[in-house]
């Protein structure tokens, strides 16, 4: 799982039947210092994230687990919204 920022949305009217009604978002992966890392991806939304939010996404086959896992074709799914940028810390947790 990795951190990313939601930076946009994708609209696709014609899509695989198993993606009907699902929200597609553009995300930019971030490193541990919340700096952009790598190319943007399109992710399936499992929790109701929106543009600008800091999120956690899951890659691979496990990305289909929040949905009907036997027939949802996704390799990139948003599975959590981070409370805020301040809630990502390194080293000892601040008191």
């Amino acid at each position, binding site marked *: 799982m990795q951190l990313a920022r939601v930076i946009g949305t994708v609209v696709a009217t*014609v*899509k695989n039947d198993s993606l009907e009604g699902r929200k597609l978002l553009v995300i930019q992966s971030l490193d541990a210092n919340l700096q952009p890392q790598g190319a943007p991806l399109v992710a399936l939304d499992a929790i109701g994230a929106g543009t600008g939010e800091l999120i956690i996404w899951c890659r691979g086959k496990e990305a289909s687990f929040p949905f009907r896992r036997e027939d949802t074709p996704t390799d990139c799914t948003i599975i959590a919204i981070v409370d805020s940028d301040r809630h990502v810390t390194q080293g000892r947790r601040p008191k």
Partner: protein
Amino acid sequence: MIIARILGTVVSTQKDERLRGKKLLIVRPLNLDGTEAGSGYTIAVDTVGAGYHERVLVVAGSSARLAEGMKDAPVDAAIVGVIDTVDYVND
């Protein structure tokens, strides 16, 4: 998932039985602004009826098998959507 453009098609007669009747397309990854991201390509199985030069969503890895009609097929990339629009903030 990545955004890609359909560059062409591949025809294969002798193939795994589970690929029978499936359209094989050559796709190239795109940047968000629609420009091509490098010169690489992937062969992806079409599950939605996409056509030449369309912008599509491509799922890679074992998830590609989960698309409708792809059960147990030996594929690692599937086209699962035709893109209408991409909106994004550029900072």
